[in-house]
Protein backbone atom coordinates (compact mmCIF):
# COMPACT_ATOMS: atom_id res chain seq x y z
CA UNK A 1 0.00 0.00 0.00
CA UNK A 2 1.33 3.38 -0.89
CA UNK A 3 0.97 5.18 2.40
CA UNK A 4 0.57 8.89 1.90
CA UNK A 5 1.68 11.60 4.23
CA UNK A 6 -1.76 12.55 5.42
CA UNK A 7 -2.64 8.93 6.14
CA UNK A 8 0.52 8.43 8.14
CA UNK A 9 -0.32 11.55 10.05
CA UNK A 10 -3.88 10.48 10.75
CA UNK A 11 -2.78 6.97 11.69
CA UNK A 12 -0.25 8.43 14.10
CA UNK A 13 -2.91 10.57 15.73
CA UNK A 14 -5.28 7.64 16.06
CA UNK A 15 -2.57 5.39 17.50
CA UNK A 16 -1.78 7.98 20.13
CA UNK A 17 -5.42 8.45 20.97
CA UNK A 18 -6.01 4.72 21.39
CA UNK A 19 -2.93 4.21 23.58
CA UNK A 20 -3.79 6.92 26.13
CA UNK A 21 -6.12 6.52 29.10
CA UNK A 22 -8.03 9.58 28.01
CA UNK A 23 -8.72 8.99 24.34
CA UNK A 24 -9.43 11.97 22.16
CA UNK A 25 -10.78 12.59 18.69
CA UNK A 26 -8.17 12.11 16.00
CA UNK A 27 -6.19 15.02 14.61
CA UNK A 28 -6.25 16.67 18.02
CA UNK A 29 -2.62 16.62 18.94
CA UNK A 30 -1.72 19.79 17.19
CA UNK A 31 -4.91 21.33 18.41
CA UNK A 32 -3.61 20.66 21.93
CA UNK A 33 -0.32 22.29 20.96
CA UNK A 34 -2.27 25.35 19.91
CA UNK A 35 -5.17 24.83 22.24
CA UNK A 36 -6.13 28.43 22.97
CA UNK A 37 -6.31 29.56 19.41
CA UNK A 38 -8.07 26.46 18.22
CA UNK A 39 -10.61 26.47 21.03
CA UNK A 40 -11.31 30.10 20.26
CA UNK A 41 -11.90 29.15 16.63
CA UNK A 42 -14.39 26.41 17.49
CA UNK A 43 -16.02 28.37 20.31
CA UNK A 44 -16.68 31.37 18.09
CA UNK A 45 -18.45 29.12 15.61
CA UNK A 46 -20.61 27.75 18.41
CA UNK A 47 -21.19 31.27 19.75
CA UNK A 48 -22.92 32.27 16.55
CA UNK A 49 -25.43 29.46 17.05
CA UNK A 50 -25.99 30.55 20.69
CA UNK A 51 -27.06 34.04 19.64
CA UNK A 52 -29.63 32.61 17.28
CA UNK A 53 -31.07 30.37 20.00
CA UNK A 54 -31.45 33.26 22.46
CA UNK A 55 -33.18 35.35 19.82
CA UNK A 56 -35.65 32.58 19.07
CA UNK A 57 -36.27 32.06 22.78
CA UNK A 58 -37.09 35.76 23.21
CA UNK A 59 -39.87 35.50 20.68
CA UNK A 60 -41.31 32.16 21.73
CA UNK A 61 -41.37 32.62 25.52
CA UNK A 62 -44.20 30.16 25.96
CA UNK A 63 -42.17 27.43 24.29
CA UNK A 64 -39.28 28.26 26.59
CA UNK A 65 -41.45 27.85 29.66
CA UNK A 66 -42.54 24.42 28.45
CA UNK A 67 -38.94 23.47 27.69
CA UNK A 68 -37.90 24.60 31.19
CA UNK A 69 -40.62 22.43 32.72
CA UNK A 70 -39.40 19.48 30.66
CA UNK A 71 -35.83 20.09 31.82
CA UNK A 72 -36.99 20.09 35.48
CA UNK A 73 -38.83 16.80 34.93
CA UNK A 74 -35.82 15.20 33.26
CA UNK A 75 -33.60 16.50 36.08
CA UNK A 76 -35.84 14.90 38.69
CA UNK A 77 -35.82 11.64 36.74
CA UNK A 78 -32.02 11.66 36.62
CA UNK A 79 -31.79 12.27 40.37
CA UNK A 80 -34.15 9.39 41.09
CA UNK A 81 -32.35 6.95 38.73
CA UNK A 82 -29.33 5.15 40.36
CA UNK A 83 -25.95 6.21 38.88
CA UNK A 84 -24.38 3.90 36.27
CA UNK A 85 -20.73 2.87 36.25
CA UNK A 86 -18.91 4.40 33.25
CA UNK A 87 -15.84 2.91 31.64
CA UNK A 88 -14.53 6.16 30.33
CA UNK A 89 -14.24 9.73 31.58
CA UNK A 90 -17.23 11.97 30.98
CA UNK A 91 -16.94 14.44 28.17
CA UNK A 92 -14.22 12.58 26.33
CA UNK A 93 -15.00 11.32 22.85
CA UNK A 94 -14.21 7.68 22.11
CA UNK A 95 -11.42 7.20 19.61
CA UNK A 96 -12.64 5.81 16.31
CA UNK A 97 -10.90 2.90 14.68
CA UNK A 98 -9.00 4.03 11.59
CA UNK A 99 -11.20 3.57 8.55
CA UNK A 100 -9.68 1.67 5.66
CA UNK A 101 -12.03 3.60 3.41
CA UNK A 102 -10.08 6.80 4.10
CA UNK A 103 -7.74 5.72 1.31
CA UNK A 104 -10.52 6.49 -1.21
CA UNK A 105 -11.76 9.70 0.39
CA UNK A 106 -11.75 12.76 -1.83
CA UNK A 107 -9.18 14.54 0.34
CA UNK A 108 -6.82 11.57 0.39
CA UNK A 109 -6.99 10.99 -3.38
CA UNK A 110 -6.70 14.70 -4.03
CA UNK A 111 -3.60 14.93 -1.86
CA UNK A 112 -2.06 11.93 -3.62
CA UNK A 113 -2.59 13.67 -6.95
CA UNK A 114 -1.24 17.00 -5.75
CA UNK A 115 1.88 15.38 -4.38
CA UNK A 116 2.64 12.68 -6.93
CA UNK A 117 0.50 13.34 -9.99
CA UNK A 118 -1.43 10.72 -11.91
CA UNK A 119 0.93 7.88 -11.03
CA UNK A 120 0.45 8.41 -7.30
CA UNK A 121 -3.31 8.74 -7.70
CA UNK A 122 -3.68 5.52 -9.67
CA UNK A 123 -1.29 3.68 -7.37
CA UNK A 124 -3.48 4.65 -4.42
CA UNK A 125 -6.68 3.62 -6.21
CA UNK A 126 -5.17 0.25 -7.06
CA UNK A 127 -3.94 -0.18 -3.49
CA UNK A 128 -7.49 0.54 -2.32
CA UNK A 129 -8.74 -2.30 -4.48
CA UNK A 130 -6.65 -4.72 -2.41
CA UNK A 131 -7.46 -3.04 0.90
CA UNK A 132 -11.19 -2.73 0.41
CA UNK A 133 -11.71 -6.23 -0.98
CA UNK A 134 -12.38 -9.04 -0.94
CA UNK A 135 -13.95 -9.36 -4.32
CA UNK A 136 -16.07 -12.43 -5.09
CA UNK A 137 -14.26 -15.26 -6.77
CA UNK A 138 -15.53 -15.93 -10.27
CA UNK A 139 -15.64 -19.68 -9.72
CA UNK A 140 -18.02 -19.25 -6.79
CA UNK A 141 -20.66 -17.36 -8.78
CA UNK A 142 -21.92 -20.32 -10.86
CA UNK A 143 -21.87 -22.44 -7.70
CA UNK A 144 -24.04 -19.89 -5.95
CA UNK A 145 -26.59 -19.96 -8.73
CA UNK A 146 -26.45 -23.75 -8.75
CA UNK A 147 -27.27 -23.92 -5.04
CA UNK A 148 -30.12 -21.45 -5.36
Amino acid at each position, binding site marked *: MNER*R*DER*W*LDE*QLRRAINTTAPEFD*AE*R*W*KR*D*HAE*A*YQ*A*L*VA*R*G*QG*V*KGVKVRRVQGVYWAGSALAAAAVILVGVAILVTPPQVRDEPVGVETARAPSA*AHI*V*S*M*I*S*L*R*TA*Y*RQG*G*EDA*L*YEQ*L*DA*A*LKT*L*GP*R*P*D*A*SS*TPLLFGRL
Partner: protein
Amino acid sequence: MRTRNGIRMTGVAVALLLLVWTCGAQAIPPDPDNAALLYYQALLIHHEPNDAIASTYQDFVAGKTGPTDQIRQYVASSHAALDYATLASKVQDCDWGLPYSKGFSLLLSHLSHYRSLARLIVADARLEAHQGRYETALDRCFLLQRMADHLGDDTLVSYLVGLAVRDQSYTCMEDVIGRAWNDATLLRWLRSELANPPVRAISPVRPFQIEREIVMDLMRMERGRELASALGGELEQKEAGQIAARANEHILGRARRMYSQRVQEMLDVLNGPLSYNEAYSRLKQLKDGSDPADPASVLVGTFAPAMSRVYGSKIRTEAHANAVRAGIEICLHRSETGKLPASLPQGLPRDPFSGEDFEYRPADQGFVLRCRAKDLDRDLVHEYAFTLR
Protein backbone atom coordinates in the same frame (compact mmCIF):
# COMPACT_ATOMS: atom_id res chain seq x y z
CA MET B 1 -79.06 0.90 -35.49
CA ARG B 2 -76.57 -1.30 -37.31
CA THR B 3 -74.12 1.61 -37.49
CA ARG B 4 -74.45 2.25 -33.74
CA ASN B 5 -73.76 -1.45 -33.02
CA GLY B 6 -70.76 -1.33 -35.32
CA ILE B 7 -69.32 1.66 -33.48
CA ARG B 8 -69.93 -0.06 -30.16
CA MET B 9 -68.18 -3.24 -31.34
CA THR B 10 -65.23 -1.24 -32.68
CA GLY B 11 -64.95 0.58 -29.35
CA VAL B 12 -64.92 -2.71 -27.44
CA ALA B 13 -62.30 -4.14 -29.79
CA VAL B 14 -60.07 -1.08 -29.41
CA ALA B 15 -60.48 -1.19 -25.63
CA LEU B 16 -59.52 -4.88 -25.59
CA LEU B 17 -56.52 -4.24 -27.80
CA LEU B 18 -55.40 -1.41 -25.53
CA LEU B 19 -55.83 -3.65 -22.48
CA VAL B 20 -53.75 -6.44 -24.03
CA TRP B 21 -51.08 -3.97 -25.13
CA THR B 22 -50.91 -2.30 -21.73
CA CYS B 23 -50.71 -5.64 -19.90
CA GLY B 24 -47.93 -6.75 -22.25
CA ALA B 25 -45.97 -3.52 -21.71
CA GLN B 26 -46.16 -3.90 -17.95
CA ALA B 27 -45.10 -7.55 -17.90
CA ILE B 28 -41.36 -6.79 -17.74
CA PRO B 29 -40.35 -3.59 -15.97
CA PRO B 30 -37.91 -1.45 -17.93
CA ASP B 31 -34.17 -1.49 -17.31
CA PRO B 32 -32.78 1.33 -15.15
CA ASP B 33 -32.48 4.70 -16.86
CA ASN B 34 -29.42 5.49 -14.74
CA ALA B 35 -26.26 3.85 -16.10
CA ALA B 36 -24.54 4.03 -12.71
CA LEU B 37 -26.95 1.47 -11.26
CA LEU B 38 -25.89 -1.02 -13.90
CA TYR B 39 -22.20 -0.17 -13.50
CA TYR B 40 -22.49 -0.74 -9.75
CA GLN B 41 -23.90 -4.20 -10.49
CA ALA B 42 -21.06 -4.88 -12.91
CA LEU B 43 -18.59 -3.84 -10.21
CA LEU B 44 -20.25 -6.16 -7.69
CA ILE B 45 -19.74 -9.23 -9.86
CA HIS B 46 -16.35 -8.18 -11.20
CA HIS B 47 -13.25 -9.65 -9.58
CA GLU B 48 -9.55 -9.08 -10.03
CA PRO B 49 -7.36 -11.91 -11.39
CA ASN B 50 -5.66 -14.02 -8.75
CA ASP B 51 -2.10 -13.26 -7.67
CA ALA B 52 -0.63 -16.05 -9.82
CA ILE B 53 -1.48 -14.24 -13.05
CA ALA B 54 -1.69 -10.64 -11.80
CA SER B 55 1.67 -9.59 -13.21
CA THR B 56 1.24 -11.33 -16.59
CA TYR B 57 -2.25 -9.89 -16.85
CA GLN B 58 -0.99 -6.38 -16.14
CA ASP B 59 1.65 -6.70 -18.88
CA PHE B 60 -0.93 -8.03 -21.32
CA VAL B 61 -3.31 -5.15 -20.60
CA ALA B 62 -0.43 -2.72 -21.18
CA GLY B 63 0.28 -4.40 -24.53
CA LYS B 64 3.72 -5.62 -23.47
CA THR B 65 3.07 -9.34 -23.83
CA GLY B 66 0.74 -11.71 -25.63
CA PRO B 67 -2.19 -13.60 -24.09
CA THR B 68 -1.89 -16.81 -22.09
CA ASP B 69 -4.46 -19.53 -21.45
CA GLN B 70 -4.89 -18.31 -17.88
CA ILE B 71 -5.66 -14.78 -19.09
CA ARG B 72 -8.17 -16.16 -21.59
CA GLN B 73 -9.77 -18.20 -18.83
CA TYR B 74 -9.93 -15.21 -16.48
CA VAL B 75 -11.50 -12.95 -19.10
CA ALA B 76 -13.99 -15.65 -20.08
CA SER B 77 -15.02 -16.04 -16.44
CA SER B 78 -15.64 -12.29 -16.22
CA HIS B 79 -18.11 -11.96 -19.05
CA ALA B 80 -21.05 -11.23 -16.78
CA ALA B 81 -19.34 -8.04 -15.59
CA LEU B 82 -18.49 -7.13 -19.16
CA ASP B 83 -22.09 -7.74 -20.22
CA TYR B 84 -23.45 -5.44 -17.49
CA ALA B 85 -20.88 -2.77 -18.36
CA THR B 86 -21.95 -2.94 -22.00
CA LEU B 87 -25.60 -2.63 -20.99
CA ALA B 88 -24.77 0.35 -18.76
CA SER B 89 -22.79 2.09 -21.48
CA LYS B 90 -25.89 2.23 -23.66
CA VAL B 91 -27.89 4.20 -21.11
CA GLN B 92 -27.61 7.92 -21.65
CA ASP B 93 -27.81 9.30 -18.12
CA CYS B 94 -25.39 8.38 -15.39
CA ASP B 95 -25.70 9.62 -11.82
CA TRP B 96 -23.28 8.04 -9.35
CA GLY B 97 -25.25 9.35 -6.40
CA LEU B 98 -22.31 10.96 -4.65
CA PRO B 99 -23.20 12.62 -1.31
CA TYR B 100 -21.51 15.98 -1.83
CA SER B 101 -22.61 17.07 1.65
CA LYS B 102 -19.70 14.95 2.92
CA GLY B 103 -17.32 17.50 1.47
CA PHE B 104 -13.73 16.28 1.31
CA SER B 105 -14.69 13.13 3.27
CA LEU B 106 -16.69 11.97 0.25
CA LEU B 107 -15.70 8.39 -0.60
CA LEU B 108 -14.90 7.47 -4.19
CA SER B 109 -14.48 3.72 -3.74
CA HIS B 110 -16.17 2.94 -7.03
CA LEU B 111 -13.25 4.46 -8.92
CA SER B 112 -10.83 1.69 -7.85
CA HIS B 113 -13.20 -0.97 -9.09
CA TYR B 114 -14.02 1.02 -12.20
CA ARG B 115 -10.35 1.09 -13.17
CA SER B 116 -10.20 -2.64 -12.66
CA LEU B 117 -13.28 -3.15 -14.83
CA ALA B 118 -11.72 -0.95 -17.52
CA ARG B 119 -8.61 -3.17 -17.47
CA LEU B 120 -10.82 -6.20 -18.03
CA ILE B 121 -12.36 -4.56 -21.09
CA VAL B 122 -8.92 -3.67 -22.45
CA ALA B 123 -7.88 -7.29 -21.94
CA ASP B 124 -10.97 -8.49 -23.78
CA ALA B 125 -10.34 -6.02 -26.64
CA ARG B 126 -6.75 -7.23 -26.95
CA LEU B 127 -7.86 -10.88 -26.95
CA GLU B 128 -10.37 -10.13 -29.71
CA ALA B 129 -7.67 -8.36 -31.72
CA HIS B 130 -5.32 -11.33 -31.28
CA GLN B 131 -8.02 -13.57 -32.72
CA GLY B 132 -8.50 -11.29 -35.71
CA ARG B 133 -11.88 -9.96 -34.63
CA TYR B 134 -10.93 -6.35 -35.11
CA GLU B 135 -14.39 -4.87 -35.23
CA THR B 136 -15.30 -6.45 -31.89
CA ALA B 137 -12.01 -5.24 -30.46
CA LEU B 138 -12.80 -1.70 -31.59
CA ASP B 139 -16.30 -2.03 -30.15
CA ARG B 140 -14.66 -2.70 -26.80
CA CYS B 141 -12.53 0.42 -27.26
CA PHE B 142 -15.67 2.49 -27.81
CA LEU B 143 -17.22 0.84 -24.77
CA LEU B 144 -14.24 2.15 -22.78
CA GLN B 145 -14.83 5.63 -24.16
CA ARG B 146 -18.49 5.60 -23.19
CA MET B 147 -17.48 4.40 -19.74
CA ALA B 148 -15.02 7.27 -19.49
CA ASP B 149 -17.75 9.73 -20.45
CA HIS B 150 -20.11 8.18 -17.92
CA LEU B 151 -17.54 8.43 -15.18
CA GLY B 152 -17.70 12.03 -16.15
CA ASP B 153 -17.08 15.15 -14.28
CA ASP B 154 -18.55 14.67 -10.82
CA THR B 155 -15.26 15.20 -9.04
CA LEU B 156 -11.77 16.03 -10.12
CA VAL B 157 -10.62 12.47 -9.39
CA SER B 158 -13.53 11.04 -11.43
CA TYR B 159 -12.55 13.30 -14.31
CA LEU B 160 -8.91 12.17 -14.14
CA VAL B 161 -9.82 8.49 -13.99
CA GLY B 162 -12.15 9.08 -16.96
CA LEU B 163 -9.26 10.60 -18.91
CA ALA B 164 -7.06 7.63 -18.07
CA VAL B 165 -9.73 5.18 -19.24
CA ARG B 166 -10.13 7.14 -22.48
CA ASP B 167 -6.35 7.11 -22.92
CA GLN B 168 -6.34 3.32 -22.51
CA SER B 169 -8.91 3.08 -25.29
CA TYR B 170 -6.59 4.99 -27.65
CA THR B 171 -3.62 2.77 -26.77
CA CYS B 172 -5.76 -0.25 -27.54
CA MET B 173 -6.94 1.30 -30.82
CA GLU B 174 -3.31 1.83 -31.86
CA ASP B 175 -2.76 -1.90 -31.49
CA VAL B 176 -5.88 -2.80 -33.47
CA ILE B 177 -5.07 -0.29 -36.23
CA GLY B 178 -1.60 -1.81 -36.52
CA ARG B 179 -3.14 -5.24 -37.04
CA ALA B 180 -5.98 -4.15 -39.33
CA TRP B 181 -4.01 -1.60 -41.39
CA ASN B 182 -4.97 -3.33 -44.62
CA ASP B 183 -8.71 -3.30 -43.95
CA ALA B 184 -9.73 0.01 -45.52
CA THR B 185 -13.44 -0.53 -44.84
CA LEU B 186 -12.81 -1.00 -41.13
CA LEU B 187 -10.48 2.00 -40.98
CA ARG B 188 -13.05 4.22 -42.70
CA TRP B 189 -15.70 3.05 -40.25
CA LEU B 190 -13.34 3.80 -37.36
CA ARG B 191 -12.60 7.24 -38.79
CA SER B 192 -16.30 8.09 -39.00
CA GLU B 193 -16.97 6.76 -35.48
CA LEU B 194 -14.15 8.83 -34.02
CA ALA B 195 -15.46 11.91 -35.81
CA ASN B 196 -18.75 11.63 -33.91
CA PRO B 197 -18.96 13.89 -30.89
CA PRO B 198 -19.13 12.06 -27.54
CA VAL B 199 -22.60 11.40 -26.12
CA ARG B 200 -21.63 13.30 -22.99
CA ALA B 201 -18.77 15.76 -23.37
CA ILE B 202 -16.80 16.00 -20.14
CA SER B 203 -14.61 18.88 -19.07
CA PRO B 204 -12.67 19.79 -15.94
CA VAL B 205 -14.80 22.92 -15.45
CA ARG B 206 -17.64 21.27 -13.53
CA PRO B 207 -15.42 19.36 -11.06
CA PHE B 208 -13.53 22.55 -10.33
CA GLN B 209 -16.77 24.42 -9.76
CA ILE B 210 -18.02 21.69 -7.39
CA GLU B 211 -14.71 21.63 -5.58
CA ARG B 212 -14.83 25.41 -5.22
CA GLU B 213 -18.20 25.16 -3.49
CA ILE B 214 -16.87 22.44 -1.15
CA VAL B 215 -13.83 24.51 -0.18
CA MET B 216 -15.87 27.71 0.23
CA ASP B 217 -18.22 25.85 2.55
CA LEU B 218 -15.27 24.45 4.48
CA MET B 219 -13.56 27.80 5.11
CA ARG B 220 -16.00 28.93 7.79
CA MET B 221 -15.57 29.23 11.55
CA GLU B 222 -18.36 26.81 12.31
CA ARG B 223 -16.60 24.16 10.21
CA GLY B 224 -13.43 24.42 12.31
CA ARG B 225 -13.17 20.70 12.97
CA GLU B 226 -13.55 19.67 9.30
CA LEU B 227 -11.22 22.46 8.21
CA ALA B 228 -8.62 21.23 10.69
CA SER B 229 -8.89 17.67 9.37
CA ALA B 230 -8.64 18.81 5.76
CA LEU B 231 -5.61 20.96 6.56
CA GLY B 232 -4.05 18.01 8.35
CA GLY B 233 -4.47 15.99 5.16
CA GLU B 234 -2.84 18.61 2.98
CA LEU B 235 -0.08 20.09 5.13
CA GLU B 236 2.58 19.08 7.61
CA GLN B 237 1.32 18.87 11.19
CA LYS B 238 3.16 21.96 12.39
CA GLU B 239 2.12 24.09 9.45
CA ALA B 240 -1.51 22.98 9.72
CA GLY B 241 -1.47 23.81 13.44
CA GLN B 242 -0.09 27.26 12.82
CA ILE B 243 -2.72 28.08 10.21
CA ALA B 244 -5.60 26.76 12.34
CA ALA B 245 -4.26 28.71 15.32
CA ARG B 246 -4.31 31.98 13.41
CA ALA B 247 -7.67 31.42 11.70
CA ASN B 248 -10.49 33.81 12.52
CA GLU B 249 -13.62 35.03 10.78
CA HIS B 250 -11.78 37.87 9.08
CA ILE B 251 -8.99 35.64 7.73
CA LEU B 252 -11.39 32.96 6.55
CA GLY B 253 -13.65 35.54 4.90
CA ARG B 254 -10.67 36.95 3.03
CA ALA B 255 -9.50 33.43 2.15
CA ARG B 256 -12.94 32.64 0.69
CA ARG B 257 -12.89 35.73 -1.50
CA MET B 258 -9.31 35.11 -2.63
CA TYR B 259 -9.99 31.44 -3.30
CA SER B 260 -13.09 32.13 -5.35
CA GLN B 261 -11.24 34.72 -7.38
CA ARG B 262 -8.23 32.44 -7.88
CA VAL B 263 -10.34 29.53 -9.12
CA GLN B 264 -12.29 31.84 -11.43
CA GLU B 265 -9.02 33.09 -12.92
CA MET B 266 -7.95 29.49 -13.45
CA LEU B 267 -11.25 28.63 -15.13
CA ASP B 268 -10.89 31.68 -17.39
CA VAL B 269 -7.47 30.43 -18.47
CA LEU B 270 -8.88 26.96 -19.04
CA ASN B 271 -11.69 28.32 -21.22
CA GLY B 272 -9.53 30.93 -22.94
CA PRO B 273 -7.65 30.95 -26.24
CA LEU B 274 -4.11 30.60 -24.82
CA SER B 275 -1.63 28.12 -26.28
CA TYR B 276 -0.66 25.07 -24.22
CA ASN B 277 2.61 26.63 -23.04
CA GLU B 278 0.96 29.90 -22.06
CA ALA B 279 -2.01 28.29 -20.33
CA TYR B 280 0.13 25.78 -18.43
CA SER B 281 2.54 28.44 -17.20
CA ARG B 282 -0.28 30.78 -16.15
CA LEU B 283 -2.10 28.01 -14.27
CA LYS B 284 1.09 26.98 -12.50
CA GLN B 285 1.74 30.59 -11.56
CA LEU B 286 -1.77 30.94 -10.13
CA LYS B 287 -1.34 27.73 -8.13
CA ASP B 288 2.06 28.59 -6.70
CA GLY B 289 1.47 32.27 -5.98
CA SER B 290 0.95 32.17 -2.18
CA ASP B 291 2.36 34.54 0.43
CA PRO B 292 3.68 32.39 3.32
CA ALA B 293 3.31 35.32 5.74
CA ASP B 294 -0.42 35.64 5.04
CA PRO B 295 -2.54 32.79 6.52
CA ALA B 296 -5.41 33.53 4.12
CA SER B 297 -3.04 33.24 1.20
CA VAL B 298 -1.59 29.99 2.55
CA LEU B 299 -5.11 28.59 2.96
CA VAL B 300 -5.91 29.51 -0.64
CA GLY B 301 -2.67 27.95 -1.87
CA THR B 302 -3.36 24.80 0.15
CA PHE B 303 -6.80 24.20 -1.31
CA ALA B 304 -6.24 25.66 -4.78
CA PRO B 305 -6.61 22.84 -7.30
CA ALA B 306 -3.59 21.53 -9.18
CA MET B 307 -5.14 22.92 -12.34
CA SER B 308 -1.93 23.04 -14.40
CA ARG B 309 -1.49 19.33 -13.79
CA VAL B 310 -5.11 18.54 -14.69
CA TYR B 311 -4.80 20.70 -17.80
CA GLY B 312 -1.67 18.70 -18.72
CA SER B 313 -3.64 15.44 -18.42
CA LYS B 314 -6.41 16.82 -20.62
CA ILE B 315 -4.00 17.93 -23.36
CA ARG B 316 -2.14 14.61 -23.16
CA THR B 317 -5.36 12.68 -23.85
CA GLU B 318 -6.25 15.04 -26.69
CA ALA B 319 -2.81 14.52 -28.21
CA HIS B 320 -3.30 10.76 -28.08
CA ALA B 321 -6.75 11.04 -29.69
CA ASN B 322 -5.37 13.22 -32.49
CA ALA B 323 -2.43 10.87 -33.05
CA VAL B 324 -4.82 7.93 -33.46
CA ARG B 325 -6.95 9.86 -35.95
CA ALA B 326 -3.84 10.92 -37.90
CA GLY B 327 -2.56 7.32 -37.74
CA ILE B 328 -5.78 6.05 -39.34
CA GLU B 329 -5.29 8.40 -42.31
CA ILE B 330 -1.72 7.23 -42.78
CA CYS B 331 -2.82 3.57 -42.67
CA LEU B 332 -5.58 4.33 -45.19
CA HIS B 333 -2.94 5.85 -47.49
CA ARG B 334 -0.87 2.71 -47.13
CA SER B 335 -3.89 0.51 -47.74
CA GLU B 336 -4.91 2.44 -50.87
CA THR B 337 -1.46 3.03 -52.43
CA GLY B 338 0.48 0.08 -51.07
CA LYS B 339 3.09 2.22 -49.34
CA LEU B 340 3.41 4.65 -46.49
CA PRO B 341 3.41 8.36 -47.42
CA ALA B 342 6.83 10.00 -47.70
CA SER B 343 5.67 12.91 -45.58
CA LEU B 344 2.70 13.66 -43.39
CA PRO B 345 -0.45 14.33 -45.49
CA GLN B 346 -1.97 17.78 -45.12
CA GLY B 347 -4.96 18.58 -42.93
CA LEU B 348 -4.54 15.87 -40.29
CA PRO B 349 -5.38 16.42 -36.61
CA ARG B 350 -2.61 18.33 -34.88
CA ASP B 351 -0.40 17.98 -31.86
CA PRO B 352 -2.12 20.12 -29.21
CA PHE B 353 1.11 20.64 -27.26
CA SER B 354 2.61 22.69 -30.11
CA GLY B 355 -0.49 23.52 -32.13
CA GLU B 356 1.38 22.18 -35.19
CA ASP B 357 1.30 18.98 -37.24
CA PHE B 358 2.80 15.89 -35.65
CA GLU B 359 6.33 15.04 -36.67
CA TYR B 360 6.02 11.98 -38.93
CA ARG B 361 8.73 9.35 -39.19
CA PRO B 362 8.48 6.02 -41.06
CA ALA B 363 9.96 3.17 -39.00
CA ASP B 364 11.02 -0.44 -39.65
CA GLN B 365 7.60 -1.92 -39.02
CA GLY B 366 5.33 1.07 -39.36
CA PHE B 367 5.62 4.71 -38.42
CA VAL B 368 5.91 7.09 -35.50
CA LEU B 369 4.02 10.31 -34.80
CA ARG B 370 5.83 12.64 -32.44
CA CYS B 371 4.69 15.81 -30.71
CA ARG B 372 6.65 18.94 -31.51
CA ALA B 373 6.56 20.44 -28.02
CA LYS B 374 7.27 19.13 -24.56
CA ASP B 375 4.64 17.97 -22.07
CA LEU B 376 5.70 20.45 -19.36
CA ASP B 377 4.09 18.48 -16.56
CA ARG B 378 6.01 15.30 -17.36
CA ASP B 379 8.99 17.01 -18.91
CA LEU B 380 9.02 14.82 -22.02
CA VAL B 381 7.94 14.79 -25.65
CA HIS B 382 5.27 12.20 -26.44
CA GLU B 383 5.47 9.92 -29.44
CA TYR B 384 3.06 7.30 -30.72
CA ALA B 385 4.41 4.22 -32.49
CA PHE B 386 2.14 2.40 -34.94
CA THR B 387 3.46 -1.09 -35.60
CA LEU B 388 1.94 -2.52 -38.78
CA ARG B 389 1.79 -6.30 -38.42
